[in-house]
């Protein structure tokens, strides 16, 4: 009887530890998915609302993608350049695969929306765009993050003299003995003149 009692307890404890370990793994994957979504969303938000010389053009303009390096997003300079972007495996802005994100995928959607109803895409430019980043993790679970950008945003103020600003920071954090650094993006809401 006592052996049975101890056995039940041992099995229960083992299952508890197992479920705790599984939950930790799932939480880790979800946290990585959120980090990835934030990294992409902040990268998109650092861009201008529209191409200054072709404000009505939707999508990438000529010369913004290097045919020899199609994964490189260095030429993406306005929000709608990112519409339809699929990055799998996820790559950073320079087109290099992000360490530790094997099995993840990222897609970006940019739409005009009317401020009166931001849930429905608009055919007209109502001076507001909705950016949606969707990340799928190795188990197929998706994480979606949305943000809005206005054409009157501080990012779209045209300075009186040509100036180079820092609008976004790519942050890499290595926590404890994690093999891969965590990547985060941060938007600088107030413009910082590049040194």
């Amino acid at each position, binding site marked *: 009887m*006592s052996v049975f*009692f101890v056995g039940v*307890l041992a099995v229960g404890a083992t299952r*508890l530890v197992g479920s705790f370990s599984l939950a930790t793994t799932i939480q880790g994957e979800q946290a990585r998915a959120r980090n990835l979504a934030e990294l992409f969303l902040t990268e998109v938000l650092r861009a201008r609302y529209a191409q200054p010389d072709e404000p009505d053009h939707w999508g990438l303009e000529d010369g913004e993608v290097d045919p020899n390096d199609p994964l490189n997003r260095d030429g993406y300079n306005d929000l709608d350049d990112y519409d339809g972007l699929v990055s799998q495996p996820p790559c950073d802005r320079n087109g290099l695969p992000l360490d530790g994100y094997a099995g993840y995928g990222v897609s970006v959607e940019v739409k005009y929306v009317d*401020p009166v109803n931001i849930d429905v895409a608009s055919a007209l430019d109502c001076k*507001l765009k909705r950016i949606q980043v969707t990340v799928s993790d190795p188990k197929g679970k998706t994480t979606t*993050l*949305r943000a809005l950008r*206005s054409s*009157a945003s501080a990012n779209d103020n045209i300075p009186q003299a040509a100036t180079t600003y820092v609008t976004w920071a790519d942050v890499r954090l290595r926590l404890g003995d994690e093999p891969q650094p965590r990547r985060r993006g941060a938007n600088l809401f107030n413009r910082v003149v590049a040194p």
Partner: protein
Amino acid sequence: MTSRRDISLSRHGRKARGSAYVFIVGAAMLLSVIGLGIVAASRLQVRAQGLSRDAEEASFTASSAVEHGLATIANNPGWRTSYTHGVWTASISLNRGTFTWKLVDQHDNNLANNNSHSARLYGKGVVGAATRVYSVLLEVGADSLVHVQPASWRTELNE
């Protein structure tokens, strides 16, 4: 009739059984404490991650509130009379939360009485237990349009 040897064996058996029960109860208590500790740690971790996720999403939601306010004002030349100083707009859903914004006339608490007065636009995002508020200062430019004053974006802690 019970012999002295039988009594000794019986006492020894009871002693052994007693030790086994103490061991079992001890092991059970130890496993219970470990189990409860694991459950508590797991719950705390889930809660901390949830709060962190809420705070991050609230940040995007609050910045979106500011952008929504800017677009709404840019689309509405009569915004000074459409909105009342210090009154939050109706909440709009975004991500897992909601946002709202308000305008504050920093000169005389009246948006409608002077077109040249600057106003501060506050955007609030609420996701779960997290709330974030950002604000920007709006000024009227030489083109009579409203512009965000450079370097005026700030995080509000007391809204």
